[in-house]
């Protein structure tokens, strides 16, 4: 695998295409490959940069396989799975996988949709049942879900604060992190205003301009590459635990709000990898909001359902703990590249080149977004 990222900022001053191209060139170079070695592209369906856009911008002479994976933040691990499938099936040899966005200076996902629309919803979106009530953003959805988790299990905002602080500490060691230079104390967290209760400002991820890219190729080719082998042990996607339609809001109709499709991903992933949570040395959890980390700790079996708060407070998430998380700072403090930078950091852990390296890490769990559908993968050192 090759990895590459741009800088992460609030105002890149560059087009989304330029960011994608820079990250792609960095990943190709990192892998020790030439531009023309890339014969396939897998993109996120939400990316405004198309497969031929990036191929043109890279000066590729030919592209012979491409695809896209839906689901926004839930896509990246599934995108890697799609790349693996293409290589395994003989449809491609070297696949470029990328995500690029001007998430702060361009389209801001946290602002909610419908600002221009006179009538909202219809056409299978079901937004007409949600948005006219002022339910407008992903953060409000997660506030509703986490309050339910609090009602059922007595979960605490202190545990969310611990997750935010943990990610910030990892970002502080990472010079690429958007908030790497900003220290955060518990008081800093508490002093920020509530945005949608019980969630405060630092329970929300960053908005970022930037791009990350990954090169996927066969183990045979990778052995001759410029980097230590990083093997994709398994990938999994799952839409489960109460199927719901549309982009986001209908997840609130799910029979149990504390059940997430990440539990379905975990079942498949561990079965395919032949290991369980005990076999994971370090994890990069998708963290658009702090409750996603807490619920994934449960769903991926690091603690039982309902014990996420106690587990997060136990010190387990720290370097030296039983499952160190988000070692580059995550969406919360490194940058929001919609889950792709989590894969880049996972590869760094396997190479031993993270700025918060977990000693002797041989396996890394990387998860992608939730709550509608989800995906994840396990990376490991040379097989």
């Amino acid at each position, binding site marked *: 695998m090759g990895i590459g990222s741009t800088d992460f900022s609030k105002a890149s001053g560059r087009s989304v295409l330029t960011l994608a191209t820079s990250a792609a060139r960095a990943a190709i170079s990192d892998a020790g490959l030439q531009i023309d070695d890339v014969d396939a592209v897998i993109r996120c369906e939400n990316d405004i940069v198309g497969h031929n856009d990036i191929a043109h911008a890279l000066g590729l002479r030919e592209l012979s396989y491409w695809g896209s994976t839906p689901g926004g933040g839930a896509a990246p691990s599934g995108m890697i799975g799609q790349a693996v499938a293409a290589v395994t099936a003989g449809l491609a040899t070297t696949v470029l996988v990328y995500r690029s966005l001007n998430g702060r200076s361009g389209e801001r996902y946290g602002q909610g949709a419908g600002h221009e629309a006179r009538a909202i919803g219809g*056409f299978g979106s079901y937004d007409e*049942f949600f948005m006219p009530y002022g339910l407008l953003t992903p953060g409000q959805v997660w506030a509703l879900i986490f309050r339910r988790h609090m009602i059922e299990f007595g979960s605490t905002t202190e545990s969310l604060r611990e997750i935010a602080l943990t990610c910030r500490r990892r970002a502080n060691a990472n010079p690429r992190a958007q908030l790497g230079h900003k220290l955060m104390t518990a008081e800093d967290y508490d002093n920020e*205003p509530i945005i949608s209760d019980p969630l405060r400002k630092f329970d929300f991820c960053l908005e970022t301009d930037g791009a990350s890219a990954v090169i996927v190729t066969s183990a045979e080719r990778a052995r001759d590459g410029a980097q230590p082998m990083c093997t994709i042990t398994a990938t999994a996607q799952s839409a489960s635990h109460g199927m719901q339609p549309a982009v986001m809001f209908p997840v609130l109709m799910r029979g149990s709000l504390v059940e997430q499709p990440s539990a379905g991903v975990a079942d498949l992933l561990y079965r395919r990898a032949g290991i369980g949570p005990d076999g994971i040395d370090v994890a990069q959890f998708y963290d658009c909001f702090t409750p996603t980390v807490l619920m994934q700790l449960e769903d991926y079996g690091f603690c039982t359902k309902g014990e996420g708060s106690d587990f997060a407070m136990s010190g387990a998430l720290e370097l030296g703990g039983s499952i160190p998380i988000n070692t580059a700072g995550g969406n919360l403090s490194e940058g929001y590249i919609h889950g792709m930078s989590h894969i880049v950091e996972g590869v760094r852990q396997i190479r031993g080149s993270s700025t918060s390296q977990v000693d002797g890490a041989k396996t890394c769990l990387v998860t992608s977004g939730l709550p509608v559908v989800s995906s994840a993968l396990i990376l490991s050192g040379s097989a």
Partner: protein
Amino acid sequence: MIPFVDDVDTKPFFDAARDHRLVVQRCGSCAQIAHLPLGLCPHCGSGDLSWETVRPAGVLHTWTVVVRQVHQDYPTPYTIVLVDHIDHPSVRFIGHIAGERSLAPGQLMRAEFIDRGGVVMPNWCVDTSTRSDSGEDPPS
């Protein structure tokens, strides 16, 4: 922001709301409830879905008080409530309460019908007519 009420699958819900009736789909073949609305029953595949009027009553499942404003039509603070229908717990509705007030899981809620820009839609508010079993979990 007003709801789009001309979607072929969801229009009858808003047609009923105009008459101040809360409705959900029931399958004539397997008798199960379908919500959110669609054209074919997700349980058995039948197209024999009809609209059934249900009581405008529910229990509070969860809520959030929105403090940070993101849209000009929705001044903060306001409370978004998620309500389980009292007779069909698998059916949930969203409601909007201006400001913030003391709420408890499982407390009784009732639907009223509001006019937003000429479109009538149900909204959910605290049912003050009956003493609630606040603090207890709603039926699951």
